């Protein structure tokens, strides 16, 4: 009952890889997007805001379908990527990572943006009066001060990526060893006679991993907060 089969272990490893890649690659874009949304004042900001948050409210199947159209081998972006970089996303684990990243992106941006909004703008002004150019102000003040939010956002994105199902299965299907992440494997087990044991074991693993990610995020944010308050 409690022993994990090699197939299940493959799904777990794949899920962790997909989630880690999704988080790491979306992090720089997420920080930049959050910064633009927090500090920018330009026409169309509300549109960018809406666009970033779309995956949060759209049916995941629709998101997956849009990815399939854009990044499929014959899609405009998919064919471009294949011809220039030799990167194929559809029906590959990299595509699963893209789907997970897109779904986790709004959560990440939201957490980072809230942290950036909460920074006292006068800290940035003070740094500028001391001679720091805007890039230096961003690197030495904005970024470190929003670190708890960045960590929280990254962890949320990771946890969301671990659990992503609808967009993934639509975009890259459910191929064991290639695109079959934990949720897809659980779904497959529930569709198979006698698959209850596998579904149960993987569900327990999913609960443990998600919970661990949340706790880790909380602990990391708390530690950075304490250092700031001078209790180190």
């Amino acid at each position, binding site marked *: 009952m409690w022993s994990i089969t090699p197939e299940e272990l493959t799904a777990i490893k794949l899920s962790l890889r997909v989630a880690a890649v999704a988080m790491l690659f979306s992090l720089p874009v997420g920080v930049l997007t959050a910064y633009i949304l927090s500090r920018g004042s330009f026409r169309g900001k509300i549109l960018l805001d809406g666009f970033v948050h779309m995956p949060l409210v759209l049916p995941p199947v629709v998101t997956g379908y849009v990815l399939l159209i854009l990044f499929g081998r014959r899609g405009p972006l998919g064919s471009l990527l294949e011809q220039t970089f030799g990167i194929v996303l559809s029906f590959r684990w990299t595509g699963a990572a893209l789907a997970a990243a897109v779904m986790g992106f709004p959560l990440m941006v939201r957490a980072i943006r809230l942290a950036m909004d909460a920074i*006292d703008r*006068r*800290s940035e*002004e*003070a*740094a*500028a*009066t*001391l*001679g*720091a*150019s*805007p890039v*230096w*102000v961003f690197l*030495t*003040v904005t970024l*470190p*001060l929003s670190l708890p939010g960045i960590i929280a956002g990254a962890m949320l994105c990771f946890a969301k990526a671990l659990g992503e199902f609808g967009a993934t299965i639509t975009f890259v299907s459910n191929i064991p060893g290639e695109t079959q992440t934990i949720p897809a494997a659980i779904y497959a087990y529930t569709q198979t006679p006698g698959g209850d044991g596998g579904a149960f074991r993987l569900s327990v693993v999913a609960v443990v991993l998600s919970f661990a990610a949340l706790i880790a995020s909380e602990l990391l944010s708390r530690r950075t907060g304490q*250092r*700031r*308050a*001078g209790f*180190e």
Partner: protein
Amino acid sequence: MIRFSCRLARPRFVLDADFTCTDGCVALFGPSGSGKTTVAKLIAGLEHPDSGRIAVDDHVLVDTAAGIRKPVHQRRVGLVFQDGQLLPHLSVQQNLAYGRYFAPKEAQAIPFDAVVELLGIGHLLAARPATLSGGERQRVAIGRALLAAPRLLVMDEPLASLDAARKLEILPFIERLRDELSLPIVYVSHALEEVARLATIVVRMANGKVAAQGPPSEVFASPLPDNAMDRFEAVSFLSGTALRELPEYATTILDHPAGEITLPGRFGPKGKTVRIAIRATNVTLATEKPHGLSVRTALKGRVHAIAGGDGPLTLVTVELEGGDHVSASLTRLAVADLGLERGREVYALVKAVSIDERSIATLGGE
């Protein structure tokens, strides 16, 4: 040398100010909402004028006519905020070093250790800003601004968030910056005693405009005619030399041609020149030398001028023996009862306790 001339219109507020200060400390003085902080922000580059020009020595910071608008980080204006604004994620040491990193190497005139010593913050270097007291935070903020090798120091109410004892602790540091480092300072404050003590030139602001500018002894000699509250802001400046300290009473006696002045606190040694600021509301006039009064200071002089008007109050200016002037805020009734008129011999009485320690400046001397 600071030349400032800017116009800026905001909903419900218009700033239109113009002043020049050749050296030392220019104090922007006025009630809240008069535009002092806006001027400080304009100099630092955190606000931008609709039109105008700001120059420090030969460096033009803003000139709208010539299309010049230097970004904040290229101005080298050291701004000290009201609450310090230390970077919370850095230690005191890192905060101090922050601006130094960006300052041009050839401009780093003041060594790190000298600043630390001048401000007495050596024991705080490893601490985080959140653990500092208000006074410590303010001293670190001043040090950080100095180490960025600024052309000009702008201090926006740097003492406003501190208690009286801390204010007295920091004022001498600012005086030393002005005198020993010859750093031009723009000092923004609504605290008359601080301004009286530090300013070479006072720019008095009201409703976004410059109401008066000049040396403190001139600007504060007479109140603004259109504001009844300003009778509290007429101030006279007297200079004397320390005659003796009375250690057992923690009191100093100053020698002045019109009589001895008793000061709370020790401002010796003997021979030091001490300048004090006295508010007109704290001066009592007597037509003969009083006896049996607790007031120690009685300065002999003659009535020089009596302000007109038909309100309840008036301002009487007395020319003291030796030539200094002191103003007294009196009721017109008292003026009539005592029969005060120009040329009448009077004694100006000043309670020692009414002299704010913040306004007592020792100017050196022997």
